[in-house]
């Protein structure tokens, strides 16, 4: 038999033409795997507990003596004083309280572990020979991390809403500008704020994913990412670094409060979203460049 004949007669066994949709199987598997991890659930539980603690603290203070309520976090919006009047403000308070640390820390853990954790356990080589494809795997990892950003933010928001409804009255609310808006309008803004907060984490997610491609140790990648989150926020407080600060991913984070103005003040919100997109592009490309060229020996 000539080689040509063989090539014609001996086709590879069946292997039906793959459907392009099958490629999303990895993404689905990634989401399922991420949210089945005990660690992910623990992080979400911690995030859900924060509004409960804030709610109870505010409630017990107001019970102790009228006129209490304290002040908002340094430089942060002073939503907390309004919580006793309207439970919906607990949503804004909880998001403002978790955005500087708890949320980015949780994202840092998930993103940092994304590639490095798989390398650590050796599962990365089996995903790659499956073959998941490096670009496709990275894309699935990034998408799953962003899904986690959204879920984590919504967990905080929903937990806060539930606690707020339970402990405090609900109703029409006063914006930062002093105008009154209906409860339904307020609820809509709360959802919008949650989405903006989730989007604020996109930059950290990309940064964490990039760090994750640099090492084979999941723990090291998580620690580095969380360390970067903290460092950047400290640097953001140092006046001498004024010129650099607009480029820190956390610089415009608290701009979400501007959604509670009437009319909404968009400038910083847009700065924030643009900055997050920039981080996603820069560190996403860096992660891609690194991961597609990397020797996988673990």
């Amino acid at each position, binding site marked *: 038999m000539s*080689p040509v004949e*063989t*090539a014609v007669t*001996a*086709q*590879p*066994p*069946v*292997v*039906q033409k*793959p*459907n392009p949709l*099958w*490629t999303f*199987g*990895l993404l*689905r*598997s990634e989401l399922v*795997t991420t949210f*089945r*991890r*005990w660690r992910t659930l623990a992080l979400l539980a911690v995030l859900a507990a924060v509004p409960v603690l804030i709610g109870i603290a505010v409630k017990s203070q107001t019970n102790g003596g009228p006129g209490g309520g304290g002040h908002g976090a340094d430089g942060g919006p002073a939503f907390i004083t309004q919580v006793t009047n309207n439970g919906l403000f607990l949503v804004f308070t909880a998001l403002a309280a978790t955005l500087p640390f708890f949320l980015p820390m949780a994202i840092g853990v998930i993103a940092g572990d994304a590639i490095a954790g798989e390398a650590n*356990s*050796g*599962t990365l*080589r*089996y*995903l*790659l*020979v*499956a*073959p*998941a*494809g490096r670009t*496709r*795997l990275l894309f699935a990892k990034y998408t799953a991390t962003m899904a986690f950003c959204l879920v984590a933010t919504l967990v905080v928001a929903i937990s806060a809403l539930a606690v707020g409804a339970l402990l405090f009255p609900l109703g029409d609310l006063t914006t930062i500008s002093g105008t009154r808006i209906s409860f339904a309008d307020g609820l809509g803004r709360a959802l919008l704020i949650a989405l903006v907060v989730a989007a604020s984490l996109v930059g950290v997610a990309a940064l964490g994913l990039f760090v994750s491609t640099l090492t084979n140790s999941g723990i090291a990648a998580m620690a580095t990412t969380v360390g970067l989150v903290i460092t950047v926020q400290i640097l953001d407080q140092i006046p001498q670094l004024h010129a650099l600060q607009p480029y820190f991913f956390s610089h415009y984070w608290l701009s979400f409060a501007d959604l509670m103005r009437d009319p909404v003040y968009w400038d910083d919100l847009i700065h924030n979203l643009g900055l997050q997109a920039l981080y996603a592009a820069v560190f996403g490309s860096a992660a891609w460049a690194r991961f597609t*060229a990397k*020797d*996988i*020996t673990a």
Partner: protein
Amino acid sequence: MQEWSAAEAEAGPDVVASDRDAPVIATRALTKRYRGGQLAVDGLDLTVPAGSVFGFLGPNGSGKTTTIRMLMGLIEPTSGTARVLGRPMPRSSRAVLPHIGALIEGPALYGFLSGRDNLLRYDAADPTADPSTRRTRVGAALDRVGLTTAAGKKAKAYSLGMKQRLGLAAALLQPRRLLVLDEPTNGLDPQGMREIRSLVRELASDGTTVFLSSHLLDEIEQVCTHAAVMAQGRLITQGAVADLAAGARGRLVVTTPDVSDAARVLKEQGVADVVVAEDRVTCEPPDRELADVNAALVTANVRVRGFGVERASLEDAFVALTGEGFDVAG
């Protein structure tokens, strides 16, 4: 490299060359130097014929796993080329790898997932795997390695051998044209080893080429049709197992109570490398007629209980090729 590119353009990007007679794996001067400077594989020219069960032998640190990593596109060769199923690696990973099942350096599993869910995840990672048949294929793979009853257990609760079996199941999720198994019997009980051997034979009889690295030489001898021997990153020899074992000369063994007399007579007869042990004298078989040697022994009143040439095992061939030393080469 150049002449291959032209052939590839003709074949089109989606067709994995399916010429049954072409080698399944062919490397040319394949070399890998790790970032630390370690030269792990040095100018490897390996040819694995289609349909063979190919044993890949070598002492610890000789570069077997490194070679497999290059073949699977996990690491980039420093120089040289590797073609798998007729396509260049790592460039054609997407087209080639769906046809390959691999077990590399032991199994790796998600401890918090059950055995079945582990396989579902690995199958989902393959964009050419049909999700509608996923559960049945996973079930069949579990059955094939004898894990059906343990399939619901978390993988972290698996024993070493069970993990190894699950890793093997992952390699069998689809019909494959090539199976690459890096020390597949590591951690298995004797029963498990036998099952792997029969599995390998069964797959080979279906036409799957099996590329198997191992330290267990009798295992290679039992299942492999071809073998290659590595030492310190270099290929020492490759070919059909029968030829390799034949290459190492057998030993003439004389069993006798009079060992010292026998040794003296044998030396007088001009045979080399005489070794005396308890009631046996062994030596390199002389080129002359063996019957004459025996006659000389009997004439010298050596009481001969047994006389004959023991065929060389692959182990002898292996030791002869890689040296007796136990130390791992740095």
